[in-house]
């Protein structure tokens, strides 16, 4: 009881305000729901969770590769297999994500004050491309030699290459295993929390009474 009293007495406390805001906007019932609106009944809805699942496999296989180092898979059958898991989970991740993105576009899923959900999702897509790109640069094989040589011209041409050096394996490896996954993970968490907070967007015209019973 004392803590409740303190909360009401000290509404200016940052911690209390954060907790109150969290409880108001994202109660546990929204975070872990056991019901969904009836209109959530299409295969297109599966692609969001499939994308997250592929990301989980990417992270798990990537962690194993990181422990062994970037050249391990050249000399070890086990390494080659884990590299294959990483490679195919990336391919699946992008396939699922692109279908998810198109699905959300055709649903106009930003309606009803859900712009932040779209924005974080599309930023996650762009960051994913950068993360995958740095992965291709750290394969330490011919493909990464080629991509580094070709890509440097694009980044150099607008001045970015002065700091983002695609021919620098050390920098690209750190980008790939530390900085970009951190950014992608953070944006993904914010995106998922936005989905849970705002709920799944209702069908277009669901509330347009003028279409009720019209030329079905």
């Amino acid at each position, binding site marked *: 009881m004392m803590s409740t009293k303190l909360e009401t007495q000290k509404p200016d406390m940052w911690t209390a305000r954060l907790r109150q805001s969290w409880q108001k906007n994202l109660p546990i019932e929204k975070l872990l*729901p*056991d*019901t969904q*609106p*009836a*209109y*959530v009944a*299409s295969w297109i809805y599966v692609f969001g*969770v499939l994308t*997250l*699942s592929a990301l*989980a*496999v990417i992270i798990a296989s990537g962690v194993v590769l990181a422990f062994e180092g970037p050249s391990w*898979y050249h000399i070890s059958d086990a390494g*080659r*297999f884990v590299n*294959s*898991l*990483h490679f*195919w*989970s990336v391919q*699946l991740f*992008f396939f699922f994500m692109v279908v998810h993105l198109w699905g959300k576009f*055709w*649903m*106009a899923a*930003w309606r*009803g004050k859900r712009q932040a959900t*779209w*924005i974080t999702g*599309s930023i996650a897509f762009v960051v994913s*491309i950068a993360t*995958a790109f740095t992965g291709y640069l750290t*394969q330490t*094989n*011919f493909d990464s*030699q*080629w991509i*580094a*040589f*070709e890509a440097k011209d*694009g980044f*150099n*041409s*607008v*001045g970015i*290459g*002065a700091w983002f*050096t695609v*021919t*620098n394996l*050390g920098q690209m490896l750190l980008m790939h295993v530390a900085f970009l996954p951190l950014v992608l993970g953070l944006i993904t968490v914010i995106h998922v929390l936005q989905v849970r907070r705002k*709920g799944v967007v*209702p*069908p277009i*015209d*669901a509330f347009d009474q003028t279409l*009720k*019973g019209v030329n*079905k």
Partner: protein
Amino acid sequence: MSADKSAIHSKESAPWQGKVRRYDIVKEGVIALLIVSLLTLTLSIFMGSPDEPSLTFKGWAASNSDNFYTTAVQELAGTSESAGYGAPYNDAGVGLNLGPLWLQKWAGIHHPINSANDFVITPLGEQQQPADVAAALSTWRSAAVVDKQKWAVDYDAALSAVEGKVSAVESGDYGPVPTLAKGLTAMATSGALDGLLLSQGGFFQTDHTKQILFFGDGAYLDDAGTAANLQGGTWGMMNETGRYPGQAWLWLYSFWYQIPPFNNEESHPIGANADAYILALMGVMSLGLVMIPFIPGVRSLPIRIPLHRAIWRQYYQTEGIGKRKKK
């Protein structure tokens, strides 16, 4: 916004008050993870993954020693691509532009590279050389810049005249340049150059910029890229070595390189600066993707084109919601 639209917008924002169905989010997540894991496992077991071994200077000198030799001469003459590249490696070129914006040049030199010294003279000096190469190195180091330039440029021109066939070059006063190129080719053939270029006199090194640039100056890397169907002009950006999918998600980036004016490198100012224009274009388009909810016309496309009728077919049928009339 009309009153009707405002009311609809308000209802779309509010928590759903209509019919609901059972939904086990944890079960869904676990099943999805299992399915994706199995799919990944199956693809990995049956398809594997690409791993074409990296190219080496040893391989280059062994497979096409004349091209390696000629490239070494170009590095000394300052006529190679890297020698005249500009920022961020040197100030020999102005770089690309975006109209009045010379971003490449303005960014400045962040990774200084002197092609003659970094690719030829320093590696030769790092290792004990035969007497003739050591003498040539000494001559080069003590010569005036104008002499070095004349020897190397004359020899480069002589090599060009016979299309890089070293044994066919006419004799002339090329100073120590032929001996230096011969010495570097011998180092590359033995495999010593690969290690020396990486270490550059140190122990730890993770930056391969110099090796990559040197490779790119010759035909070895380019030929290998062509053979693997990786050239940018033929959608190579999306390709992978072997029979594997590449970065298919770069299709739009790759697309611009296939069409005018971007693929007109020779005679169009945009084509000549295609790398800069395409990167800028993709930057703007990426921003456009993020901002779709705020772009009139684009944000209403999914409402005008009724693909949503397929997505929510069951709901529309159950609730008896008809199609919009075409305006």
